[in-house]
């Protein structure tokens, strides 16, 4: 039995006690053909009523990742709740490679979830654990277990216990309502961070997952704010003449890259968050915007139209030199690097629309990975396996997500209004 994980869960739940809800639902749009067959057997509850279907949450998480193809429940002849009850032959016959079994029981201050991950062909238990979850923390417990299973099978750290920030918008022209939300990565437990009749855009998580930087027009002009998501405390950090946009945290959380047009054309600047001192990074007569840091903090990528149309460039912070990274097509913008720094995710104008694409920085090869059009704002999961982005379904803005290899995808529509500007949090645990 491993250490309990109640501490961080409780912390999260206190921080994000919900005020206004704008939960997103999930629709799987494409499953990967390389997904590993797994069965997550409904967890037994000893006849007690449990408010969340923990096994279903785990199964949905694993399926969305594109790495797993969970077995339908009605195909399960047998429903063991612990490893010693498993008859491996039955599951082998169903071509299941891995099996998850478990039980949920009431505990003094909430629930205890026991789970085991079994390797069907090896006929052995891979991991097993007992997890404590507070009365309202069953979903968090299920996400934690999903993370453990994901890592045990794939070797990649799970990112199911992370959060997303996003902006909702309703109305048009002068009569609009905007709101900034944070929610669990699966769209549940949404909490409003800010609402305004003026535009809100470009939310960015600090590397410690505690703060959001964003652009708000609440003073009828754009300004950059930094807000503590837990306490709500916030500060205006940039309100120069012209554009104050596209904030991006450095990996150490001490600096914010941003776009300012105070001297005429939009250029990239870096602000020291503590002192508010500004350093100008680019100085061209073209548009330079949408900065993002390389994971090692040594360079910034950004969008520039210095060659005529928007393309992605990389600025080396020690040499001061910029090099162009994208050459495929005449519109490549809003780049974000994978956590290993080897892949660039961006918005590429293709023959069918504006789509999310991945460019391998080693070979320079660019591949479109989304099946939607009118895509915007790609944001990479902290483990690099998924990219969340904004797209359109009919005339509504929805969030979409696609696996980094493009094989699996899902959508997160909202019940009302447009959803846009998703930002995937760093690891929070």
């Amino acid at each position, binding site marked *: 039995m491993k250490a309990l994980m109640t501490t961080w869960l409780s912390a999260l739940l206190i921080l994000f006690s919900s005020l206004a809800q704008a939960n997103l639902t999930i629709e799987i749009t494409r499953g990967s053909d390389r997904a590993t067959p797994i069965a997550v057997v409904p967890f037994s509850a000893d006849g007690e009523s449990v408010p969340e279907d923990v096994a279903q949450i785990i199964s949905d998480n694993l399926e969305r990742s594109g790495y797993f193809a969970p077995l339908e429940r009605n195909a399960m002849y047998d429903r063991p709740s612990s490893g010693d009850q498993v008859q491996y032959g039955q599951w082998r016959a169903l071509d299941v490679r891995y099996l998850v079994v478990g039980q949920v029981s009431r505990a003094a201050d909430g629930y205890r979830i026991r789970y085991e991950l079994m390797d069907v062909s090896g006929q052995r238990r891979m991991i097993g654990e007992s997890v404590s979850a507070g009365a309202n923390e069953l979903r968090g417990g299920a996400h934690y277990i999903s993370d453990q299973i994901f890592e045990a099978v794939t070797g990649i750290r799970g990112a199911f216990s992370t959060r997303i920030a996003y902006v909702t918008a309703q109305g048009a022209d002068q009569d609009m309502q905007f709101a900034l939300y944070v929610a669990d990565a699966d769209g549940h437990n949404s909490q409003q961070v800010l609402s305004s009749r003026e535009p809100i855009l470009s939310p960015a998580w600090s590397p410690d997952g505690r703060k959001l930087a964003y652009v708000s027009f609440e003073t009828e002009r754009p300004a950059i704010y930094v807000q503590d998501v837990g306490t709500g405390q916030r500060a205006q950090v940039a309100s120069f003449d012209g554009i104050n946009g596209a904030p991006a945290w450095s990996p150490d959380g001490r600096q914010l890259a941003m776009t300012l047009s105070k001297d005429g054309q939009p250029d990239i600047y870096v602000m020291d968050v503590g002192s508010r001192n500004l350093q100008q990074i680019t100085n061209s007569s*073209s548009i330079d915007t949408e900065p993002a840091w390389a994971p090692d903090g040594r360079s910034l990528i950004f969008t520039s*139209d210095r060659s005529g149309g928007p393309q992605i460039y990389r600025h080396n912070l020690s040499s001061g030199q910029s090099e162009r990274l994208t050459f495929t097509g005449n519109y490549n913008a809003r780049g974000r690097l994978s956590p290993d720094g080897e892949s660039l995710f961006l918005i590429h104008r293709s023959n069918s629309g504006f789509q999310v694409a991945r460019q391998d920085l080693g070979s320079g090869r660019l591949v479109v990975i989304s099946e939607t059009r009118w895509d*915007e704002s790609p944001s990479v999961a902290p483990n690099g396996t998924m990219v969340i982005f904004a797209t359109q379904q009919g005339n509504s803005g929805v969030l979409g997500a696609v696996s980094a290899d493009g094989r699996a995808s899902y959508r997160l529509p909202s019940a009302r209004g447009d959803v846009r500007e998703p930002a995937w949090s760093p690891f929070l645990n």
Partner: protein
Amino acid sequence: MQFKSHARTLAIALSLALIAGCSSTGGSRDGSMDGTTRADGGVGTGTAGSGQVSGTGVNGDRAGQQADGRIPEVRTIYFDYDRDSIRSEFESVLVAHARYLRSNGNARVVLQGHTDERGTREYNMALGERRANSVKRFLEVQGVSPSQLQVVSYGEERLAVRGNGEDAHAQNRRVVFAY
């Protein structure tokens, strides 16, 4: 940049020369699809160009004849796809605003730049600013004090019309005079 020789006054000719000069870094680029009809051929003056989509129902020429004491009624002008140049049918609108601002030195106006919704948000923020700056330069050449003019780009954040048709795009590519 293809400006036709519509200059009615020396001032306008000067404005155009300045704007043409300043635009040498390239026009606004809304992210339109390759191969879609360009607004300067397809939509152009037909739909959004008349000024009527702003809801005022007053066309540019009448706006140009208003008394100096009143804010001109046409307060939205539209742009072609991929352009930040002032379309000839809106020159009289700008001249009317310039006359009003010159005669009313205490008047202030915010030039709100907008794009259509194609392409990325922060890049469109920059494109909307280019359009509003193009209007600002025109007014300054007309003798309006820079202190009366403020530029705010909204990019694609406040669409006038929703939808992905070229009509909607044309009505979203605009600069609004907000007094």
